[in-house]
């Protein structure tokens, strides 16, 4: 397939890996921020192509994984109301809240639907004026503009039966939380290309300068990732700490200006709780007061019982790159995709799910 196969060429991948091996003189620890990159690495076996001295750790860039249990509980409580149609992305359906997940809530009779775009939920609200359509808005800056557009359209059309439960999060504050923590091992970051496609990468420049850490905006195909790692190691070996753009075919420094403007119009930044990690200042997006009429949490006024999270789940450590999934005692024993303790075992971008799916028996064989 054009524009895809070029980036999955086995010969080019081996050649790039060989150049990387010659370049890499010291041991380095680098983090790929995005869960999509984690899956590409594990799925294509890219880590096996890297020099042994280079350690890849997996980052927090899985929106499903970091959505707070309290917000999930709230979404399920809203979905259970008879007048509500709750729409969300497919990935959210199996994520465990305190007591249940959206699939189970659906099986009990709630109207929960998977959509591919928030605009599909707006369309549903137009077609079914007697139902309350709620969009559970999850994702980083990549999906947030579509939510902003949905809210903007709903306001323009006066759609009184549409609302959103906003769980959107921002990448830069999470990166800063990781790099500023005293036990941070990460020496360089592969920044998420799709987030930067929207936001640009100017906001990463102060981070690189302040914490003396190189950041390479990187794509998602195997050769993108290998090249991103190569550029990062070049900087690490040279002792520089700049923001570079590997994903130049998609990302510009200023990002998508229209999308950013729309985000600023509809959303304000707030402190948000990250599942397993805790509250991070300025890391969340919430509706501005002008759009508060579309806030589902306020519209339904539901109080949730206190949240409960399984104490045996170390997903917060995984999301911050402190441990790898198999180092969690519950991995592949008490915690599996059928009975996940944490969201990282569920999402198609979660690191635990990636290891379970593509690595488990090899790891098990290794231990036995």
């Amino acid at each position, binding site marked *: 397939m054009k524009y895809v196969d070029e980036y999955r060429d086995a010969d080019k*991948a081996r050649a790039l890996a060989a150049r990387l091996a010659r370049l890499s003189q010291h041991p380095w620890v680098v983090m790929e921020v995005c869960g999509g990159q984690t899956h590409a690495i594990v799925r294509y076996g890219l880590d096996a192509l890297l020099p042994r001295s280079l350690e890849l750790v997996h980052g927090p860039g899985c929106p499903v994984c970091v959505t707070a249990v309290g917000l999930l509980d709230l979404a399920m409580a809203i979905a259970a109301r008879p007048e509500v149609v709750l729409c969300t992305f*497919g990935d959210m359906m*199996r994520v465990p809240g305190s007591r249940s997940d959206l*699939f189970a809530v659906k*099986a009990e009779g709630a109207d929960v639907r998977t959509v591919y775009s928030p605009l599909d939920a707006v369309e549903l609200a137009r077609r079914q004026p007697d139902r309350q359509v709620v969009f559970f808005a999850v994702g980083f800056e990549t999906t947030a503009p579509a939510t902003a557009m949905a809210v903007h359209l709903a306001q323009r059309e006066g759609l009184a039966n549409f609302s959103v439960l906003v769980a959107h999060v921002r990448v830069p504050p999470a990166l800063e939380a990781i790099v500023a923590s005293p036990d941070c091992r990460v020496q360089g970051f592969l920044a998420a290309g799709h987030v930067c496609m929207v936001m640009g990468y100017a906001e990463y420049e102060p981070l690189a300068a302040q914490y003396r850490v190189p950041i390479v905006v990187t794509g998602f195909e195997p050769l993108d990732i290998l090249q991103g790692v190569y550029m990062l190691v070049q900087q690490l070996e040279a002792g520089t700490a700049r923001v570079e753009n590997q994903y130049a075919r998609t990302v510009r420094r200023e990002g998508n200006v229209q999308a950013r403007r729309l985000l600023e119009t509809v959303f304000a930044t707030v402190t948000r709780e990250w599942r397993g990690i805790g509250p991070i200042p300025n890391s969340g997006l919430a509706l501005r007061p002008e759009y508060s009429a579309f806030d589902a949490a306020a519209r339904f006024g539901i109080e949730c019982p206190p949240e409960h999270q399984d104490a045996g789940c170390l997903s917060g450590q995984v999301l911050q790159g402190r441990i790898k999934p198999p180092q969690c005692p519950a991995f592949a024993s008490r915690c599996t995709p059928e009975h996940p303790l944490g969201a990282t075992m569920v*999402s198609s971008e979660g690191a635990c799910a990636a290891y379970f799916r593509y690595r*488990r028996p090899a790891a098990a064989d290794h231990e036995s």
Partner: protein
Amino acid sequence: MLLAHGGGGRLMSQLIERVFVPTFANPYLSRQHDGAVVRCGSVRVAFTTDSYVVQPLFFAGGDIGSLAVNGTVNDLAMCGARPQYLSCGLILEEGLELEVVRRVAESMQAAAGRAGVQLVTGDTKVVERGKGDGLFVNTAGIGVVESELDIGPEQIRPGDVVLLSGDVGRHGIAIIAQRESLQFEGTIESDCAPVAEEVLALLAAGIEVHCLRDLTRGGLGSALVELAERAGACVEVCERDIPVREEVRGACEILGLDPLYVANEGRFVAFVPAAQAERALGVLREHAGSAQAAAIGAVTAAGSGRVLMESAVGGQRLVDRLSGEQLPRIC
């Protein structure tokens, strides 16, 4: 019950192994093949059944009627049988238009003609509005097993070559495209078709077929994992050798799906001895339905029960069962 209990993944096999196999315990069922091969006097008869609940009822390349005929025909073919007689049970929802029932029936008759089988008995029930999703179909079928071969996962041997009868993923993408009103350049049509002719040609050519499996809900990936586990063998396949049409790959990229787990309705894998693999491939390629047949891998060792895949860039990864249905990812 969750939807995933019917999704063809890990939850479904748990349900079968924990409830049905112990409850109905008998040697035919516990083989867990696509159908059972039983003896009626001196004749070996393959017997199978399947229910169809697809939405939408009509989709590019087929409909619930042709699906119900081909699905059962193919399950019989996987036993090495020549499919002959089918039954048809219809559960209709009050309010369904007669025209829909007529179209489905005509489609079933056309599919039966194409597959060389007859629909010889049936049953119709109507349920109250809201108690059914328009129309459900169940078909059962029998066919005679003429070959003396015992075909099944336990016959898989190290050294066997894995043949795939054509490109994968078309049925699932055709259904998703229709269900979600997704517009792609050009229509992606379901691969819904009978495969009995190809299978019988393999047997007629004297290929010592060890195992056959048609690829349905869980796609190629789930079928391979299930067979590897059942056979206690390690199956190694190469991603680059698995045919996937350009438009299906494109749709999968956009939707975040892995074509390896997308449903098919006219594809199967055959495990054959390495010495006969080239000739078997030649036989398959003579048929229009399997003109794109390919050798995608081999059985490398006994005992481990897992599937490994060499990725497009040369790395190696595990192919695992899905726990339920694939979910489109967020970004």
